[in-house]
């Protein structure tokens, strides 16, 4: 309200003496910025406790830190490849034991569901393939199928169909990778892999190389 402006005079609404400043005394400066990140301390800290127990606990702590890194519970993030392969790296690799939890104590959804008979690295790779070819390729695959159907290329579209089915299945069931793994297992990937040395992705989806030539020639392709 206008009445409480103080009529041009500075006046406090409370008894300034109660807070400890005398009348007319100079008030301390207003602080305009946050306190410094590493303020100077007037009093240096007391030295740390030293003793047999403390030394032992220190050694224990450092040992535990190293040990934990080697346990199977430490899940490492996949590293980028080093530019130079060092000789001594061979001697420093730590081989971890695998840990299998007691499934009876955990919820059923924790178990990795493996329907495929071939467990291990093969299914891993197949899963990766499945993941890669999943949702991103569904739209492309559908388009390509339409194109190819127009062209009337029966053989290729069969492969495409299988992949498309795999992709569709995946999108329907969300992240059920294991089902996709089972699905992709039907795909020829593994057989192709064993027969030749070529990387699978060498032959792109839209490539007509293999399909056309098989129709005409009986001799081997170069």
């Amino acid at each position, binding site marked *: 309200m206008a009445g409480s402006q103080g009529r041009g005079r500075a006046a406090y609404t409370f*008894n300034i003496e109660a807070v400890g400043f005398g009348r007319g005394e100079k008030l301390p400066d207003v602080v305009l910025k946050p306190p410094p990140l590493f303020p100077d301390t007037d009093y240096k800290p007391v030295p740390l406790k030293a003793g047999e127990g403390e030394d032992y606990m220190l050694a*224990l702590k450092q040992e535990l830190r190293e040990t934990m890194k080697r346990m199977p519970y430490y*899940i490492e993030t996949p590293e980028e490849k080093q530019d130079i392969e060092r000789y001594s790296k061979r001697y420093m690799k730590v081989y971890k034991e695998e840990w299998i939890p007691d499934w009876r104590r955990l919820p059923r959804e924790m178990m990795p569901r493996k329907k495929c008979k071939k467990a291990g690295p093969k299914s891993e790779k197949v899963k990766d393939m499945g993941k890669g070819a999943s949702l991103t390729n569904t739209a492309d695959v559908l388009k390509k199928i339409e194109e190819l159907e127009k062209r009337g290329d029966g053989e290729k579209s069969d492969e495409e169909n299988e992949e498309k089915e795999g992709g569709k299945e995946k999108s329907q069931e969300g992240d059920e990778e294991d089902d996709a793994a089972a699905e992709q297992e039907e795909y020829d990937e593994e057989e192709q892999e064993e027969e030749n040395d070529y990387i699978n992705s060498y032959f792109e989806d839209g490539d007509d190389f293999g399909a056309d030539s098989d129709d005409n020639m009986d001799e081997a392709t170069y």
Partner: protein
Amino acid sequence: MTQAEIKLCSLLLQEHFGEIVEKIGVHLIRTGSQPLRVIAHDTGTSLDQVKKALCVLIQHNLVIYQVHKRGVVEYEAQCSRVLRMLRYPRYIYTAKTLYSDTGELIVEELLLNGKMTMSAVVKKVADRLTETMEDGKTMDYAEVSNTFVRLADTHFVQRCPWVPATENSDPGPPPPAPILVISEKDMYLVPKLSLIGKGKRRRSSDEDAAGEPKAKRPKYGTDNKEPIPDDGIYWQANLDRFHQHFRDQAIVSAVANRMDQFTFQTQTSSEVVRTMLRMSEITTPSTDPFTQPLSSNEIFRSLPVGYNISKQVLDQYLTLLADDPLEFVGKSGDSGGGMYVINLHKALGSLATATLESVVQERFGSRCARIFRLVLQKKHLEQKQVEDFAMIPAKEAKDMLYKMLSGNFISLQEIPKTPDHAPSRTFYLYTVNILSAARMLLHRCYKSIANLIERRQFETKENKRLLEKSQRVEAIIASMQATGAEEVQLQEIEEMITAPERQQLETLKRNVNKLDASEIQVDETIFLLESYIESTMKRQ
């Protein structure tokens, strides 16, 4: 959970379990309980990795699961349990002091693995102990089993809840998650096992082939072909029991510091208090404010053998303890020669207050500490009264009070004289609210440890190149020694690390040691403050 706690949990999880587990764990701590798919979606990690991370976290008792309606399983993280990881060295060291190396290794294995069966623990510990013994000697399983049984009897290890054996009478689908139960009386029941065997020493031929992966690397848990006799019975370390032990240690040392400086007989009063605490170990739950009343006769009978003080002297000590203003020991009756209790809650309060006083002294100076103790004693004081009682000039007293006020050690209490709370007609009294000051200090401790860990990681990262180099040199030297190399060659390799680099490594080691030791010490303060806060909250 406060930001400081979450940050500290994040650092601890990352150091111990890697980044993936850290991401999942911190997400759960932040958001509370969530089902599996939501976690995967929110953190953007694959379902497979989320499952692995959750398995690890559940194994280490950091995450629990609950089945909700419609069969949805939700996972919840226990932030306070994550913070206990700081205290692992202290638990292991305590086990060493109480049960020597065998006990130490048992507790260490249990803490590192979360849960284990008794047979697995015994086997592993026997193997480890055999490694350290001289050639030809081995550690017998029976000895390790005995120590395990003793640990279980004194409640330092306990059984984990397990799946009850159902009769399978209900034909419905199995539940999405097992419901784990445990009853009080079964918690420390050791299964009747006859573990016969000796520890095995790892053969030196294994060391040579360390570079190549062995053809059949034994999988954890499937090492033995015979069925495990105590399958499904898992044990974990009982952290509450360790905390009770630490609390007892703190009380005994406080009494010793206070009362035993001037007596000729070494540490009698602390010995009396220790006896009383030992007698109440199993009978009194650790969260009670008082122990059960103990009669002076009982205490006399329970004093350690070889401690020969007469009954009268004991009575004198008890009276002295009960009359002390610290009020650790109280007299609750006169039967049986005098009934005495230990005021656990008061003891914790005194310890927390002493911690606060010490912090004020070290941070602001001894005159501030004098003002602080004054306000503590008198409960509420005005500005003017503080100056008078503390005998400190007005300007300085004012300055100190405001420093403490802005640090939240002291707070202001308003007492209005008139209903309109006009500032000119209100008393402003300074007071110390111990609970809130303790909370503030605890929060600060969490921040401190987080800073310490970050600094240690920074120092290690700065010198990463140098550390890797020295590790490589060591690996090369080790491999050369194994294949038999001359002294000259070894010298040459060692000189790959120059003198200034050695200096740098020394400095790094010293700094890292200092930071680690600081972490351990701050954790002691955290323990005291947390115990006090917990005890206070239970009483309200």
